């Protein structure tokens, strides 16, 4: 397994290189003089020169690419056109907010999704099962930004249970609506995955054996069935968490959540290219890294997986 993980990590190198290359060229396609935009309109000639040299804007494209690679490896993602601060600094400042939202959304999704899926699987083809599956299809089909606005309208404007948007003093009450909006698609997927996985496992021979040996209902379901059925579900949880971390862009925009996703939206509106590219690069690294962790977790949970190939 160690070899497998090592190979997967090595495989990340060309993918990351590809990501860096794409963000580099996207940055160079942007209109205007990047040095002037980074330094600001009131910068002196000397400051401009320094930035041109630091990022190699006066060099041929290939040399620029080399300098960009070197800078990225050192964690230097350029300077924001808007705030004139280092992009990496801004990213690290914003990321904890995104992490908090992602964790909240995942918590909602795991609890509700797995509960609905279990209920459906234990009572297949009853009205409970049908209602749960219809809701799950609706959940998958509802765009997150529209759902966010609906939640905001009903629960904060009409009922006034939650604040409409923002982060406030950081209390959990600000987290509820964005987390539910972001988590809904995962609730739906997790419910269907849990249901399918449980139904498959419940028909296996070893469960019949367990029952004939006198194991009680709850023991069979909890210890024997659920433990096996949960494995594919964990993968979905991991992948969804990775995509939440790599930019809950739409949700953060709807709720003015001060995370990295909203920061990216603002950067897009202001055409702040170093921030756009730096954030995209950062999100991709997180996304790929979390995927790797999910892979590893998968092997830990299921000892049958040995990754020999």
């Amino acid at each position, binding site marked *: 397994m160690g070899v497998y993980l090592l190979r997967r990590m090595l495989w990340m190198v060309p993918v990351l290189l590809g990501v860096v290359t794409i963000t580099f060229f996207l940055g160079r396609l942007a209109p205007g003089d990047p040095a002037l935009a980074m330094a600001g309109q009131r910068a002196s000639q000397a400051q401009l020169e320094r930035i041109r040299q630091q990022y190699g804007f006066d060099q041929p494209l290939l040399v620029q690419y080399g300098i960009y690679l070197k800078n990225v490896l050192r964690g230097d993602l350029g300077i924001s056109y808007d705030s004139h601060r280092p992009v990496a600094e801004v990213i690290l400042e914003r990321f904890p907010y995104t992490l908090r939202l992602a964790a909240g959304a995942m918590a909602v999704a795991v609890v509700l999704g797995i509960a609905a899926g279990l209920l459906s699987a234990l009572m297949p083809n009853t009205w409970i099962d049908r209602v749960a599956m219809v809701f799950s299809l609706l959940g998958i089909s509802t765009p997150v930004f*529209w759902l966010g606005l609906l939640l905001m309208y009903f629960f904060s404007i009409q009922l006034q249970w939650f604040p409409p948007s923002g982060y406030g003093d950081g209390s959990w009450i600000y987290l509820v609506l964005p987390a539910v909006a972001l988590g809904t698609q995962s609730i739906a997927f997790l419910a269907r995955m849990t249901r399918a996985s449980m139904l498959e496992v419940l028909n296996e021979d070893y469960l019949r054996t367990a029952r004939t040996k006198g194991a009680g209902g709850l023991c069979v379901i909890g210890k024997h069935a659920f433990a096996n059925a949960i494995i594919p579900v964990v993968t979905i949880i991991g992948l969804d968490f990775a995509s939440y971390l790599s930019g809950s862009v739409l949700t953060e925009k709807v709720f003015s959540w001060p995370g990295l996703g909203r920061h990216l939206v603002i950067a897009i509106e202001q055409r702040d290219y170093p921030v756009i590219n730096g954030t995209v690069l950062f999100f991709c690294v997180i996304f790929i890294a979390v995927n790797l962790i999910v892979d590893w977790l998968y092997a830990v949970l299921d000892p049958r997986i040995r990754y020999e190939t």
Partner: protein
Amino acid sequence: MKPWRHPYIRAGGVIVTLLVLAALLAPWISPFAPDAIRLEERYQPPSWNHWFGTDEMGRDVFSRVVHGTRISLGIGVSARTLGLLIGLVVGCVSGYYGGKTDLILQRFVDMTLAFPFLLLVISIAVIFSETEHDLLGVLIALSAVMWAGLARLMRSQVMVVKERDYVAAARAFGASDFRILVRHIIPTSYVPALIWWTMGLAQAIMAEAGLSFLGLGAQPPTPSWGSMINYGSPALRVAPWVSFFPGAALALTVLGFNLLGEGLRDVLDVRWSGRQAGEGT
């Protein structure tokens, strides 16, 4: 089971048919021009005159939603079809020729799938957003991202089929590689390609709306559902209908295509998920 007996296909079929009709007949169905501004009628609630109310410029929301069907379906169908062509070519070449060609092409597939979906679309669409080719940018961004899954699918299909006897026979008769691919190999993959195409339509339509919600993609006054939701959201308190109806139309469209895709997958019994990570966050 006959496809049209499946409840999902029936429900999805009805929704999609209505949408296609709305798109085709938009100028005749809408009571007003989608961009007709009447400032004295701004933020009117839904009424007999304006079924879905009016927006911040007094434009009729119903007419705009109906016209928006054209953008959503148009972009969705064309991005998906373009993606289908790219995926088909890459997958066939990769699977048929193998070797180094396959190795290189598959790294491109890996790389595309390793990107978080919406983020890659955003980074491509940003470049086009300042030009007058805003919709073309969305189309390019979406199809540049949505081909990789099919390329992988086609590759494995081609690798299996190319070893069959009838392909060897065709080759013995002197058929060219192109003819073998087009006449003998690609037709065996209609079903998975069709399901891939349908399932991804919902995803493409949702992504287009997401982009225009972010201010990329279709620029005003083009009646795109995503930008209508965006421009309506500051007035949520006083005029919730401005963003409610385009969002409902979007959700209904996505539901329709999801139902159709799931139904097809059920009936044709293909165990395969077309979901790509990070699509709707």
